[in-house]
């Protein structure tokens, strides 16, 4: 470790000795910052938001003016110390945006307390950017994926598992306050969310706004224009103070220190507080000073110092972990400034202690955030580029293959457009696509209606439909993919995807029928009472949709394979055999993918019919047993109807000789034995590649004086009958084996078990 530390390198792991003072500095500054946030929260109970913001900014601006001297600008002598007009305008924009974000932040603070505010808003920019990159640009490695996941879960936990005031504030609290807060309360009551949730939404949006703004063009232009972060910060603080000043002064004169109280506490007992908080200005001066120092000044200087000394993610990572920890620690002990007040007015003691208290959700979220920050700031090593070697400097070199480069160079819109075009271009996929759209629309309508009328049956049926749509999606995918051109790995093209998808769809149906069977069997013994007034209409509508689908797909089912001809031609380059698919052949070819989809739709239809019949029986006769009986029958029917599909697709996948061609192939091979010069054959393979493509391979032994090409073309024309897409003939003479022996080849592969000889040859 110590050897490494002597070299001034920018590596990810610093020696501890080097960074320990930085860490301590960071820790102290972050502790002070979270202290400042707590203080700020308390102050907000007494001072109006705008006023607090103004005074703290004013103090910070004074300090910045003293420390930074932004207007004199001694460092860059080239630029004049006075700013140009454009720069003023830009600064003005920048600062007003900053003010807006700070206001949002303060509102969030009043809503969900200092701890939650810290947990959300103090996420470092670096971490959030990494998360966004991981999600949208998929620049990720396992630890970053985990980080993103934890970050999301943490936010969700903070959002959902926190204790809240049970009822959302129906109307905004009475009292004097500014326009913004009024708008804000209107928004909250509009969305019917409680205070913590509203605050968290507010803070998350503020965080994103800030990050987006900090990486926008305006900030970059300003930084280069003004010569550095620090000057920009100083100037923008000053400008922010100036911008907020009129409002603050207006506030000051209109409502004299209004404890107006955006907190829940104050709204309930505002009279009590008003009587108590008539303090002098000096009473608030020191806390405001501290807030300003801790939140704006010290944090900024320490951050920039630390990130100058180390890598950028060092400060980001440790800083946010420290600030979280400090905030959680403070939340345990922060009660006592309250308690002082509590002694004064013991009436509201209980309320104070409950306010924004620590909950398990927050603690869990804290741990999740710490781990997420840790794993998101792990260095991203590109696994995908292959390592070539080292450059002359000594840094590793990677080569990115074309696939990785292509991935980033297409926009979402183009990709979607291309996919849609691909879907529309093929008959099968078009049909599936339209039906899928219809189904999805139906599901959507059902779900929304169910959500509005609060009907559980409708919602669960909607989920069921959505589940069924997944089979359609797979069928669509297979239909599209099967049209793709062959690649190096998929040397036969993607036609087999259809078979595989048919097989998976078959398995899907088997699983469905098993589940339905099990459920129905269970219900047979305890038939539940079903209220099915609404469901019968829904299942009738579903029946209509599915009948439409059956009509569409049964058409495709009987004429399936027409579209495959175009695909078949992609194999046509190498051999002279003819493969025109006459229209008469179409009946024998079956597209397993379409058959699977068809069966799926059929099963759905059966389900709807079953529901209608059983609910009719229940309504008319009160036979509650009808429902499980119907389900049993349907599940058995589904199972039986799937079996042929499964059998066929699995036999194709297992490379079985296709049943419809098996006899023909045998006869033809016998004919081959009669070709002049042919002595024997072995390793005769015929298998189905996809719905309409067949592949064969054969080894033929011929006599020494026969001519290979002649025999080959004769065999080709014999096997033409099979309409093969790919025929591979290995024509061997005796000398071939002698050559092999000369090469020292392992002849174990030439299995003599299957050699079939010509009979007259044997008799000789």
């Amino acid at each position: 470790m110590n050897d490494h530390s002597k070299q001034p390198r920018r590596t990810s792991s610093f020696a501890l000795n080097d960074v320990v003072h930085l860490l301590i500095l960071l820790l102290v500054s972050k502790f002070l910052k979270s202290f400042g946030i707590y203080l700020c929260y308390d102050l907000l109970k007494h001072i109006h938001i705008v006023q607090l913001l103004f005074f703290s900014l004013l103090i910070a601006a004074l300090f910045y003016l003293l420390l930074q001297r932004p207007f004199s600008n001694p460092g860059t002598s080239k630029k004049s110390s006075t700013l140009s007009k454009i720069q003023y305008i830009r600064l003005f924009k920048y600062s007003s945006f900053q003010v807006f974000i700070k206001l949002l932040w303060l509102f969030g603070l009043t809503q969900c307390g200092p701890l939650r505010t810290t947990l959300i808003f103090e996420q470092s920019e670096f971490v959030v950017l990494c998360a966004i990159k991981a999600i949208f640009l998929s620049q990720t490695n396992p630890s970053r994926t985990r980080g993103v996941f934890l970050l999301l879960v943490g936010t969700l936990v903070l959002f959902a598992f926190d204790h809240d005031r049970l009822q959302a504030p129906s109307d905004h609290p009475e009292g004097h306050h500014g326009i913004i807060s009024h708008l804000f309360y209107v928004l909250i009551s509009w969305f019917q969310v409680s205070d913590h949730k509203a605050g968290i939404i507010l803070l998350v949006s503020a965080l994103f706004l800030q990050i987006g703004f900090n990486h926008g063009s305006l900030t970059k232009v300003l930084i280069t224009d003004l010569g550095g972060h620090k000057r920009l910060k100083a100037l923008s603080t000053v400008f922010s103070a100036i911008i907020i000043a009129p409002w603050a002064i207006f506030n000051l004169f209109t409502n004299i220190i209004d404890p107006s109280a955006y907190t829940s506490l104050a709204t309930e007992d505002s009279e009590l507080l008003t009587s108590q908080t008539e303090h002098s200005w000096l009473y608030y001066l020191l806390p405001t000073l501290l807030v300003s120092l801790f939140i704006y000044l010290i944090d900024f200087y320490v951050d920039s110092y630390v990130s100058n000394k180390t890598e950028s993610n060092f400060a980001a990572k440790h800083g946010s972990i420290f600030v979280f920890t400090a905030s959680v620690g403070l939340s345990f002990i922060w009660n006592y400034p309250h308690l002082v007040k509590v002694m004064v007015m013991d009436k509201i003691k209980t309320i104070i202690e409950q306010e924004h208290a620590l909950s398990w959700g927050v603690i869990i979220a804290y741990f999740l955030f710490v781990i997420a920050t840790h794993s998101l700031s792990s260095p991203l090593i590109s696994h995908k580029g292959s390592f070539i070697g080292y450059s002359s400097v000594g840094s590793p070199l990677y080569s990115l293959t074309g696939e990785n480069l292509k991935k980033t160079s297409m926009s979402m819109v183009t990709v979607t457009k291309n996919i849609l075009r691909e879907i529309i271009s093929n008959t099968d996929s078009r049909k599936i696509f339209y039906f899928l759209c219809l189904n999805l629309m139906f599901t959507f309508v059902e779900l929304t209606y169910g959500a509005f009328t609060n009907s559980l049956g409708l919602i669960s049926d909607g989920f069921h439909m959505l589940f069924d749509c997944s089979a359609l999606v797979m069928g669509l995918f297979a239909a599209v993919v099967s049209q793709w051109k062959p690649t190096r790995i998929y040397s036969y093209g993607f036609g087999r995807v259809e078979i595989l998808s048919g097989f998976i769809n078959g398995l899907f149906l088997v699983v469905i029928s098993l589940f339905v069977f099990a459920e129905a069997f269970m219900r047979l013994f305890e038939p539940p009472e079903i209220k099915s007034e609404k469901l019968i209409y829904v299942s009738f509508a579903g029946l209509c949709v599915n009948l439409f689908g059956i009509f569409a797909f049964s058409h495709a089912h009987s004429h399936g394979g027409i579209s495959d001809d175009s695909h078949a031609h992609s194999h046509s380059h190498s051999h002279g055999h003819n493969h025109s698919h006459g229209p008469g052949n179409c009946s024998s070819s079956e597209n397993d993918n379409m058959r699977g989809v068809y069966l799926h739709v059929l099963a759905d239809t059966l389900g709807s019919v079953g529901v209608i019949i059983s609910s009719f029986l229940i309504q008319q006769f009160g036979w509650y047993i009808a429902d499980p009986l119907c389900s049993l029958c349907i599940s058995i029917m589904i199972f039986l109807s799937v079996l042929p599909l499964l059998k066929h697709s699995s036999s194709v996948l297992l490379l079985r000789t296709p049943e419809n061609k098996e006899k023909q192939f045998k006869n033809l091979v016998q004919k081959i034995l009669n070709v002049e010069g042919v002595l024997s054959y072995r390793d005769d393979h015929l298998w189905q590649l996809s719905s309409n493509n067949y592949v064969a391979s054969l080894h033929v032994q011929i006599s020494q004086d026969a001519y290979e090409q002649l025999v080959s073309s004769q065999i080709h024309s014999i096997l033409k009958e099979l309409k093969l897409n790919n025929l591979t003939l290995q024509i061997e003479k005796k000398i071939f084996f002698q050559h092999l022996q000369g090469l020292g080849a392992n002849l174990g592969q030439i299995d003599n078990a299957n050699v079939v000889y010509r009979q007259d040859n044997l008799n000789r």
Partner: protein
Amino acid sequence: MTNLTFLLKNKQAKQFFYWAIISSVVVLSLFYVSHSSNSLALASFTYIIIFDFFCLLNGILNSWARAQLAKSSFTFGFKRFEVLSLFSSAILTILASFFVIKEGFEYLFDEIQVHTSRLIPASIFAFLFHTFLILGVKNDSLDYVINSSSSSWLQEHFFDISETTCRIIPFFSKLLLPRMNPILLLGFINFVTIAGSFLLIQLGSSHMIDVYAALLIATTTIGTMTPFAIFTGKILLQTTPSHLITQLDKILREASTLDGVLEFRDEHFWTISFGVLAGSLHVRIRRDADEQLVLAHVWHKLAGVIHHLTIHVFKDDWIRRTTHQLVYSQSNLNSFSASTGNFKANSNAIQNSKHPNTDSDFVIINP
């Protein structure tokens, strides 16, 4: 019937058979417990045991397929059955997990009540049984798939975490750093999930936590099974194994420098079964080249990698000319009746590695 007697005769198959029966009993009882305790998480854990059950069936199938001879219909032999069976068991497990997810989403709108009394014993038992089945009953094809498929995201995360751990405590590196068996890992994580949800319920949290646990288990199961399904599915799709591409490229490049070879076309190499490869190749050669010599050389180069190899050697002019010329001569040939019987060489003769028909003018010289 013969299959049944085979099952009872073959020692390995018998072992698989007994374990399959035991595990089916376990599965049924687990289902009963999960049904009676109303716990979706336990039900979704049971599907992993069902996967084990399928793997045992796959073992029986393997030993059956090994005993079969290649018949006329399955010309490539029966070894491919194990690929298909593993693929279907992975897919079935994925589909069952999908079902659990769907059911979980439906439960989210419902209030459920989980009876936790039998949850922990059942899940401990299931975990131990699962671990025993994976470690104790040796299943070659499953091991092959586990070793050769790409790692699941669960494994990657586990590896990532354990790497970090080992950086802090190097002592664990022997234990944590090797590639973890994904199914074992899955069982462990799911067990931990169920135990955690049990603990949370005991601590007074909502019973919905069981549904969340079920969703988590289902997702991890899908994540673990997907690499298996992809690996076996790629075999079923007749793809060239990607790890062999560079090797095959090298061989073909070497072969293309042989005298007389002009080009290769229609190079198809695919996997029949785990580790058994098949391939076909068309070689275009110069008109004056010696076909048998070229064939022997190319064959020799590829035969080390590809087990079922067929090479088609052809010359350009011949195809063009013959398509016109040979229609007549071929039609004459067709008029012969195809009733001539054939003779199948005795397999016993091959085992003695002697050619059965040494008197014919065509002799295969065995090494």
